[in-house]
């Protein structure tokens, strides 16, 4: 491939309050290439991107840019209260003859544009009412439509389900054909190998490898990322779930008739101790809402939740007390408390257990925090570091730790491995496995089908907020699940 760099980075270093996020990094993006940027959580990927786009100024080094860069950042960065259409065209609104914004045209254009991305939501409703995945697609559409020479995507698929991922990859391919250079960050190996030409591996802020991707065996890529030998890694598979879980006799969680119009309708979920139940479904099918309904965070029109046969009042506090915990999908707005330290974030939900007469026991708190930081390999400079300063994946681990230290009976996990690197992902999965074996009931929501198939003992498939089927044992195959999900497409065809 001829070298025609559109972005050149030489010797860039960036330090945050003692953390060296980028250390003498060189990086070149050539015209028309799809360049994978990979590395463990906290390796410096997002920081490099922010340096490229000018959000951060590097402490040292040189950056050369040609042309216009358009970026999809790791966390959805749109304005939730503004309408979908306004978000799409913010900064380049269509005007009428008087120079005023032509709202009708804006809506029409937006609707048309989004249909191309498989989104049919009402473009005049506030963006915040869309599911996270849908928002991600809006962000994608916005970035792609902005006449860019370079498009940067920081984990664009982390909250997308398979069909959406296909749409996205299709978009990437089209961009590629149009000669646009792309930087693509993802922890999903399959995607990388399907679309990327070249790869740069970051480890601890240093660029450890750069070259064509196809020639690099997958196992070697992982080894480069983790800085461990190939042998060491071969012991693990792609997912790290064990086989069977011990399933207890009576369900510890019984949620029946959960209804919250118009989002979910008469959903039943029952989980036995030691069982991992997966929730499958398309984007916006109501998986998140189901989990929120169980924990009491969604106002219900109808439905009851029983824990160990006893009804639980419909609020988060009561549910938490009854032993239900939920790892929220949107860690930025519903998960981390940005001002607080890692330590404080971890013990937050378990405080009552760690204190006597309302006074916190320092020793017990530290013991728990240290345990989880080592066990989940959370990368922090110290437990006192502000959680907002951690990389996305490490924030996710902090949240997981928060829930594990409440010692719940039932754990609702909404996209638990979203944005987590391969190494840590395997650990998280192994952990889920271990917890289930210890008798925990787990509800697992994941957009990665493999994760669901391997991890769950039983799958509930949701469609349009209602249960469309349950799969167990031999039915747990890709084909069955896709079949159950895809029924929707046929339904749509029927009714039209």
């Amino acid at each position: 491939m001829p070298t025609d760099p559109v972005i050149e980075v030489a010797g860039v270093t960036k330090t945050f309050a003692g953390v060296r996020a980028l250390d003498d990094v060189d990086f070149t993006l050539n015209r028309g290439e799809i360049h994978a940027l990979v590395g463990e959580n906290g390796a410096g990927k997002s920081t490099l991107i922010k340096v490229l786009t000018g959000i951060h100024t590097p402490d040292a080094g040189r950056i050369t840019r040609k042309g216009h860069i358009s970026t999809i950042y790791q966390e959805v960065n749109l304005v939730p209260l503004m309408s979908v259409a306004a978000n799409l065209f913010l900064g380049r609104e269509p005007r009428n003859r008087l120079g005023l914004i032509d709202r009708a045209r804006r809506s029409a254009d937006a609707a048309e544009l989004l249909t191309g991305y498989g989104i049919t939501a009402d473009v005049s409703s506030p963006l915040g009412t869309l599911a996270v995945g849908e928002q991600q697609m809006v962000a994608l559409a916005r970035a792609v439509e902005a006449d860019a020479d370079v498009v940067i995507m920081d984990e664009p698929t982390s909250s997308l389900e398979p069909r959406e991922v296909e749409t996205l990859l299709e978009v990437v391919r089209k961009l590629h054909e149009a000669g646009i250079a792309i930087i693509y960050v993802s922890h999903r190996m399959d995607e990388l190998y399907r679309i990327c030409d070249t790869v740069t591996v970051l480890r601890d802020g240093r660029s450890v490898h750069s070259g064509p991707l196809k020639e690099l065996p997958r196992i070697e890529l992982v080894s480069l990322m983790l800085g461990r030998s190939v042998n060491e890694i071969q012991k693990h598979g792609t997912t790290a779930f064990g086989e069977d879980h011990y399933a207890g006799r009576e369900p510890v969680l019984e949620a029946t008739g959960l209804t919250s119009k118009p989002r979910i309708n008469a959903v039943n979920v029952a989980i036995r101790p030691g069982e991992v139940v997966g929730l499958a479904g398309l984007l916006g099918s109501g998986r998140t809402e189901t989990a929120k309904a169980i924990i009491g965070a969604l106002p219900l029109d109808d439905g009851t939740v029983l824990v160990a046969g006893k009804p639980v009042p419909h609020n988060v506090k009561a549910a938490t007390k009854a032993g239900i915990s939920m790892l929220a999908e949107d860690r930025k707005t519903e998960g981390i408390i940005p001002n607080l330290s890692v330590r404080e974030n971890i013990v937050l939900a378990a405080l009552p257990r760690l204190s006597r007469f309302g006074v916190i026991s320092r020793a017990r708190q530290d013991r728990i925090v240290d345990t989880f930081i080592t066990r989940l390999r959370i990368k922090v400079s110290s437990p006192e570091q502000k959680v907002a300063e951690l990389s996305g994946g490490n924030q996710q681990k902090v949240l997981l730790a928060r829930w594990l230290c409440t010692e719940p009976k039932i754990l609702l996990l909404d996209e638990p491995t979203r944005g987590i690197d391969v190494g840590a992902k395997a650990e998280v999965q192994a952990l889920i496995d271990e917890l289930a074996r210890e008798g925990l009931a787990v509800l697992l929501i994941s957009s990665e089908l493999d994760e669901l198939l391997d991890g769950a003992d039983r799958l509930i498939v949701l469609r349009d907020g209602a249960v469309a089927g349950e799969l167990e044992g031999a039915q747990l195959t890709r084909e069955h699940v896709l079949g159950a999900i895809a029924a929707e497409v046929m339904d749509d065809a029927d009714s039209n």
Partner: protein
Amino acid sequence: MTLTATRTRWLQDNGVYVAVVALLLFNALFTANFLTLGNFTTQLVQAAPVLIVALGMALVIGTEGVDLSVGAVMALAAAIIPLYLGAGPLVAITMALVVGLAAGAFNGFLVAEVGIQPIVATLALLVGGRGLALVIAEGQLVQLHDPAFLALGTGDVLGIPISVLIAVLLAVVVAGLTNRTTFGRQLVAIGGNRKAATLAGLPVNRVLVGVYAICGVLAAVAGVLATSRLAASDPADMGLLMELSAITAVVVGGTPLTGGKVRVLGTVMGVVLMQLVRATLIKHNLPDSIAQMIQAAIIIAAVYVARERR
């Protein structure tokens, strides 16, 4: 980290202390009769009620809230005192505190349960509360003569004025509350990210009601002390514009209005700084116009130094 960065960071954290020391130095050099015990006592006594209110305000601000009604609550407390003073000072003080508690809990209820934005929820009590106090007092200032009650404002223990002792004690309690208790941790978590705190199963509403109730009680305590010192119940003027003084002191002391953080010692220093500024301006007999402009400049300077960098 570079040296300048360290220095900026240090100044950012300790700017308010630096400012207090600078102002003390200025006064020691240029203000007549400043370095006297009597003068220091005066400054502390005048600062005590503001500090007590500011402590409550700091907690409220920590939850990403604000309480505009503190001045009105002080007036309510003042109005209550003469009604019950006949039954003894303890009864009167208790009643005043109960009213403060009720007012605060009401604010908390509006914020937590009804979901009204703090500034508006407490604005209602700011507008109506003083009116209510005046209705209770029938628009009259009442002179107080009960020696036991008045001792609260004028008495001292080992030379330290009682009101100053109470303020310091309360500061220590509030510091313990924020740093060492579940309640304190939950409070800043709510201020940092309320949605996340809710999903983490924290008793969000209970904590919010509690915080506003504490703020109400503290405002009432301040009202009682100020009333005792004035030797009169004066609901028309008691605590007028106290909300702004308290908020200023809290913010100058390094607690951000965006919530998620409470600095108790900083708040104490913020109160002391603003008190010193006022004293300096009076002692140098500056006209009101200049005094107000200088105050504005000092507030900006103090907050500028302590601001969070992006």
